[in-house]
C-alpha cells in the first residue's frame, strides 16, 4: 500500500482522535462574530458606498459649486444629478441582491462566483463615479469657459494679444493632469483592496474553471 491509500488507512484509523469540543464551547462559538471574507467584503463595500456618496454631497456646498450655481446652468446639470441618483440606487440594489445570493450551501464554484459578483457591483459603482467625475469635469470646463466672467475676461485679454490658443491649451492640460492624478490614485487604491480581498478567491475560482476545461 502506498500514497493516498496509505494516508486513507491512517485517516480512518484516527478519525476519532481529536480533542472534543464541548457543547458549552460550541454555544460560546456561535455567539461570536464571524471574521469571514464575505463579512469583510460587505463592510468595505458599504463603506465605499458611504464614502463616495458623502464625497458627492460634500462637493455640493463648496465655494466652487456655489460659484457654479451663479451661472444658472441648471438645465445642463440636472440630467447629471438625475443620472447620479439613479446610478446610486441601481448599484445599491444590485449589491444587496448579490449579497443575498451568497450561500454556503451552494457548490463552491457558484459560491465563489456570487462573492466575486458582489465585489464586481461595487467595482462598477466606483467606475461609474470615475466616469461621472471625468464627464462632469469636461462639462464644468465647458461651462466655465463660456460662463465664468473671470475666465471670459482673461480669454478676451489673451485674444487681444492674439494668443488665445495658449489659454485654452493650459486650461485643458490642467484638467487632464488633474483627472489623470485622480484616476491613477483611485486605480492604485483599488488594486490594493482587490489584491488583499480577492486574491485567494480568484485563485480558487480559476482552479475550478481550469479543472472543467
Amino acid at each position: 500500500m502506498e500514497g493516498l491509500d496509505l494516508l486513507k488507512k491512517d485517516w480512518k484509523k484516527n478519525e476519532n482522535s481529536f480533542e472534543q469540543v464541548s457543547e458549552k464551547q460550541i454555544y460560546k462559538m456561535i455567539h461570536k462574530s464571524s471574521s469571514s471574507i464575505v463579512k469583510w467584503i460587505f463592510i468595505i463595500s458599504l463603506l465605499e458606498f458611504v464614502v463616495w456618496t458623502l464625497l458627492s454631497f460634500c462637493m455640493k456646498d463648496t465655494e466652487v459649486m456655489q460659484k457654479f450655481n451663479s451661472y444658472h446652468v441648471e438645465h445642463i446639470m440636472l440630467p447629471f444629478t438625475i443620472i447620479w441618483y439613479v446610478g446610486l440606487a441601481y448599484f445599491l440594489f444590485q449589491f444587496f441582491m448579490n449579497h443575498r445570493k451568497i450561500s454556503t450551501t451552494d457548490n463552491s464554484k457558484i459560491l465563489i462566483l456570487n462573492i466575486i459578483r458582489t465585489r464586481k457591483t461595487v467595482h462598477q459603482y466606483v467606475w461609474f463615479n470615475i466616469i461621472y467625475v471625468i464627464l462632469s469635469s469636461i462639462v464644468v470646463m465647458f461651462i466655465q469657459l463660456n460662463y465664468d466672467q473671470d475666465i471670459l475676461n482673461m480669454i478676451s485679454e489673451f485674444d487681444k494679444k492674439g494668443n488665445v490658443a495658449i489659454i485654452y491649451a493650459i486650461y485643458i492640460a490642467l484638467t487632464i493632469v488633474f483627472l489623470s492624478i485622480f484616476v491613477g490614485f483611485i486605480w492604485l487604491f483599488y488594486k490594493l483592496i482587490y489584491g488583499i480581498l480577492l486574491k485567494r478567491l480568484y485563485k480558487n475560482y480559476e482552479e475550478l474553471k481550469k479543472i472543467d476545461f
Partner: protein
Amino acid sequence: MSANLEQSFVQQLQANQNIIHKICRLYTSGEDEHKDLFQEITIQLWKAFPKFRGESKFSTWAYRVALNTAITLYRKSTRMVSTTEYDTTKHFFKEEDYNYEEEEQIKLMYKAVHQLNDIEKALVFMYLEDKDYEEISETLGISEVNARVKMNRIKGKLKKILNP
C-alpha cells in the same frame, strides 16, 4: 433564533464535530489556526442552519458548508503567528502497531498534501472520506469526469512531491 433551534444545532454539531476537525487538519498548520478555522466553520454552519430542512443528513449538509468555509470564506488572521506548528501524525500511533517506515511515509504524505492548493485539498479530503465522484462534483461545482481526471493528476502530483 429560538433556544430549541440553538440546542438542536449544538447537539448535532457536537456529535458530528470530527468532520470539522478533519477539514481543519488539512487546511491549517497549527493548533491556533485549527481552533480559528473550527470556530469560523461553526459560525457559518450556525448561520446556514435555519435553512437546513433535514432533507439530507446533518453530516452531508455540514460537509459542504464546512468545506466551502475553508475554501472561500476563511481568512487567516494576520495576527496569528503560529508558534505551535503541530505534527499531524503525533498522536496517531499506538505503540502496538508502530511501524517506523510506515509512519515516516504517512508523515511525508501529510506534508505533501499540505503543499497542495485549496481545491486539490478539497478533492483529497473527499477522497479520504470515501465520497463518490458524484458528490465531489456536486460539492465543488465541477463535472464528474473532470473530478476523476483531476484526482488522478493530484495522485501524480503527490508522487512527484514525495519523489522529486
